[in-house]
């Protein structure tokens, strides 16, 4: 190795962003090329935010905690389809089946499922929306013709 300490990934990506923003975007003559160059800046910023932070695993773990909190209530209520929903491996699958069951079986248990599951799912949706902010801004600028 000629480089005992190679540049870290984030630095390389940040420098790519700077070069794209300062050199490539202003000089891109073609509309489609300019649109894509602007989006690449947003895509790289989106990717950098995921370095060392596996949000998908965190979302699964948070949702599993909520599902586990419901397990006793569901088993006590003993609705066969709701109990069967708990057998799915992924907490997203479990929550999906439980919430669909709730839509088809209005009542106290359905209300409880929504009360426990909705807040964590809304939080996850909001955090992913926030993470997608940079690429969304670039996309919306492009769609408005502000390339």
């Amino acid at each position, binding site marked *: 190795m000629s480089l005992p300490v190679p540049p870290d990934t984030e630095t390389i990506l940040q420098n790519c962003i700077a070069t794209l923003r300062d050199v490539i975007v202003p000089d891109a003559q073609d509309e489609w090329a300019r*649109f894509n160059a602007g*989006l690449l800046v947003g895509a790289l910023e*989106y990717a950098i935010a995921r370095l060392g932070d596996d949000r998908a695993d965190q979302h699964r773990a948070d949702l599993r905690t909520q599902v586990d909190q419901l397990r006793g209530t569901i088993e006590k209520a003993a609705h066969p389809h709701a109990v069967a929903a708990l057998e799915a491996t992924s907490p997203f699958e479990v929550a999906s089946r439980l919430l669909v069951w709730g839509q088809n079986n209005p009542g106290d248990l359905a209300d409880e499922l929504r009360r426990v599951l909705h807040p964590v799912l809304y939080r996850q949706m909001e955090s992913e929306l926030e993470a997608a902010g940079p690429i969304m801004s*670039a*996309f919306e600028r492009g769609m408005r013709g502000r*390339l």
Partner: protein
Amino acid sequence: MINAEQHAALADYLADALRTQGPVEIRGEGRIAMGQSRAMYVLDLAYPGSSGPVERQVVVRVEQWGLLGTNSRDEVRIMQALHGADFPVARILAYEPSCDVLDQPFFVMEFVAGKSAFDPETVDDYVLALDRLHGLDTGDFDFLDQPQEKRDSALLQVERWYGLYRSCLVEEPSPFVEEATQWLRNHAPVSQRVALVHGDPGPGNYMHADGRISALVDWEFTHLGDPDEDWAYLIAMRGAPYFSQAEWLTRIERLTGHEITPERLRYWKGLNFLKGVAVDQTAHRIYVDRVVAAPNLLAIGTGVHLNALKRLCETVL
């Protein structure tokens, strides 16, 4: 962009399709950034015609490996039928269903001059044009799926978009999509009539010039269904930045006499948000499969998708 080899093949194809008297020269090519569902190219052509040299512009609309879950075949047939009904659409010049020329199916249409940006001068004419679309004889579109029962206009669309979403799933499903879809199934309204529904109507999807509408565009989502699907889409999606919901409702009723109840508006808004969720999911699938590397697919598959999902939840859950 179209590569050099494809350029040559496309020039030969156009010479044949346009029945020119000699070779076609593609003098200019520009990809339009606005359209996301198809790659759209404006081509400047020059060729010998039967009564002398011809210079003209055409638009080539190319499928994108299933992006947004639609196909050109129905789009072309719909546009041809609409053109036959003297409806303002671009004339189809050629349709290539194979992947031999540009790696994907595509069609060629006349270039229609005009702008697609919101225009207060033509918005009333647009509402009237959409109402006229809903009044066309659906018998001219019998190649499209026909709703059989009174709740089918809703249920066929729910299953179409949910099926697309599931077919393009990346890892696990979203519990919100599953729950909202079930809500839409359980609350599907009765439709009073079946009409031709544009599917993506509103500012940005019609061209205007000199205060007149020159063409309605983007027919890939068109189907037989409930006209309220279009009105809800116009109000909640493409038209939302320009007028409030109440203003749109008043305008539509004043111009067309059509009244939309709050319950029906809520339902069809929800259906349209599910449509958005589903078509955006196709972008996610195509991007992670590395079929298309363009970053607009990452934007559509993440932020655009989540915005539609959030609005779906706010509307029906």
